[in-house]
């Protein structure tokens, strides 16, 4: 298994940057940069390209709909050039709250938007003149002055393109067109709920699931003993109750949907009802140990090692680690321990 992490460009940038530089020294393979509420992703990725030598750098993720597909492709080609081939383009749909709420762009037809966006990006990567007459994008714009153009820079068809997707049809699209899948809220025991759709998509394009990098993330946190583990679980249950109950809107909550698909539909619905009724402690009380442990890498060193083996056996090829810790050195220490365990587990 390869190892990865995700950083958010927020707070103390020097510390975040130092984390990435040190993580590279520890042997981490990939660093994704989120497009957080406070910064875009390409700015810090350009910065990190200058400060690192070996680690792969990915957008994790760039939100489609916030820039034109050609602008996404230009950023990807540039970041690949600046990092000397170390860039991975991660794309996601985000959600209507952000896309319509902050960007004022319709969230309608996310599947078609993603499909067309990827098709246009591939044209640009391949050095073709961009000519795309789709439902959501028409390039060149009809009846305008514009003629099909290509970038004046060298093509680069090899930039890996990953999609962050959860719903069945989006997963199929991922299997069909992407080089990798960025998942969240993953339970290895329930991986087939996702893999069946990824596989269907891959096979429709004459490929197989093995052609995709399966990149799954989880918090990694080491407990010294059972007592500390109970404390950690207590905190995480509250956070998970918020994700299940407080995220999204009345009609859509991707986390709730994801947990429901993994077999916790009933409890996820109850957590949501309680949370929305303002009974947050009661909501957290319903979250089981298993719901936290199954989706994370939390536990004693032995527990985490065992879970990593389960992840590997489930078909995860890149494990994205979110190391716990109050300080930079604590987070790096957690990361270092996790990297050693991944090495032990092999893959």
């Amino acid at each position, binding site marked *: 298994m390869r190892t990865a992490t995700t950083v958010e*460009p*927020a*707070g103390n*940038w020097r510390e975040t940057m130092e984390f990435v530089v040190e993580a590279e020294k520890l042997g981490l393979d990939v660093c994704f940069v989120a*497009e*957080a*509420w*406070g*910064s*875009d*992703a*390409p*700015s*810090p990725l*350009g*910065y*990190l*390209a*200058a400060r690192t030598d070996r680690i792969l750098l990915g957008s994790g993720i760039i939100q489609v709909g*916030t*820039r*034109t597909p*050609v*602008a996404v492709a*230009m*950023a990807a*080609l*540039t970041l690949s*050039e*600046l990092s000397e081939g170390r860039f991975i383009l991660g794309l996601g749909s985000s959600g*209507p*709250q952000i*896309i*319509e*709420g*902050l*960007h*004022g*762009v*319709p*969230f*309608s037809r996310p599947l078609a938007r993603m499909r067309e966006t990827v098709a246009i990006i591939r044209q640009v990567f391949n050095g073709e003149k*961009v000519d*795309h007459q789709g439902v959501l*994008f*028409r*390039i*060149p*714009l009809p009846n*305008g*002055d*514009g*003629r*099909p*153009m290509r*970038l*004046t*820079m060298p093509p680069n068809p090899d930039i890996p393109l990953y999609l962050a997707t959860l719903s069945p049809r989006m997963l199929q699209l991922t299997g069909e067109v992407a080089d990798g899948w960025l998942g969240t809220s993953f339970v290895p025991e329930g991986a087939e709920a996702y893999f069946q759709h990824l596989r269907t998509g891959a096979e429709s394009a004459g490929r197989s699931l093995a052609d995709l990098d399966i990149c799954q993330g989880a918090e990694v946190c080491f407990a010294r003993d059972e007592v500390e583990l109970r404390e950690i679980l207590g905190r995480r249950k509250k956070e998970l109750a918020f994700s299940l109950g407080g995220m999204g809107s009345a*009609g*859509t909550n991707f986390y709730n949907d994801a947990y429901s698909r993994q077999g916790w539909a009933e409890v996820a619905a109850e957590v949501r009802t309680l949370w929305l009724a303002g009974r947050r402690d009661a909501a957290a009380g319903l979250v089981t140990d298993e719901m936290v442990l199954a989706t994370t890498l939390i536990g004693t060193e032995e527990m985490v090692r065992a879970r990593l083996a389960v992840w590997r056996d489930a078909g995860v090829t890149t494990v994205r680690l979110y190391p716990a810790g109050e300080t930079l050195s604590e987070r790096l220490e957690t990361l270092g321990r996790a990297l050693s365990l991944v090495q032990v587990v092999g893959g």
Partner: protein
Amino acid sequence: MLTNGSIYATLLFNNGFGDQRRTAMRIAVVPGYSGDFLATVQDILDYESAGADMAFVPEVYTFDAVSQLGYLAAKTERIELGSGILPIYTRTPSLLAMTAAGLDYVSGGRFTLGLGASGPQVIEGFHGVPYDAPLARTREIVTICRQVWRRERVVQQGKHYPIPLPADQGTGLGKPLKLINHPVRDRIPIMIASIGPRNVQLTAEIAEGWQPFFFLPEQAEQVWGESLAAGHARRDPELPELDIVVQPTLAITDDPEAAYDRVRPTVALYVGGMGARGHNFYNDLARRYGYEAEAELIQDLYLAGKKAEAAAAVPHELLERISLIGPEGHVRERIAAMRSAGVSTITITPLAPTRAERVKLVERMRQLVDEV
């Protein structure tokens, strides 16, 4: 140059412009396109040491400026960084704001957001986005950017960018949001590239910086004075003085003709070939500078495919006045003329075969500007 009582002179006087305006003009560099970005980065590091105050990175249909600026933020220490320019049509206003906040964040507060309309060929032809209402869009974008940077919930009823998206236009799930993270500065300087009268007026009203094109100091008052004055009349007193950022071609040489000949094709391309007849802003500008017949001829030749003839038809006087080409004394005079016309930042592309010569050029430019 500055006629007493003219609108432009009054404007400059009222704003404390003129020779006492700033202690020193700033020098910005925009690297020549070499295709080798890592070599360009080394150039900029040396220009920073040689006294350049700022570096601009363009974005047209090659590389993305934002990633390059992020890279430069990591390599440089002091030099200010600017996009020169980002087109307004290819990113949402909130993303432009997040991008500027991101670059300000990784550079420790050294970023200037240069914005411009770009042109219909690129925007419609390459991005598939209608090239419409550049002025109204620019005004809304600037308002949104500043709202985002102040960490207010973004709520706009603008015609072009209603935020959140009204329910009848989408899912209805959008709620007003604000940035979670604190930007380094709640006011990132915005520079607008503009040459049309109404666009220049808008720039003088709302922006921190103005980037005209083919700036001809002796004609600046006649061509832009009214627009600048009208914009300044509505300018928020909280805004700093308008930073006027020009980009003349620089060549300190005893053989100016050879250097002029290298500039001719570029001027011919813009005046002759950027946009169809009647839709070429640069052609209009050349006419307003007083080169009506010449502008028409250049366009006729260029559009007929006679690019070399079009280049040859570019008037020598125009080239001389918009550039910094000639012996050192002449260049010094032209810098003084620009300063008298209100220029506060001179952007140069140092062109020379070796890095050492390019750096030397920036050093000499620094001396000349400081002398003036």
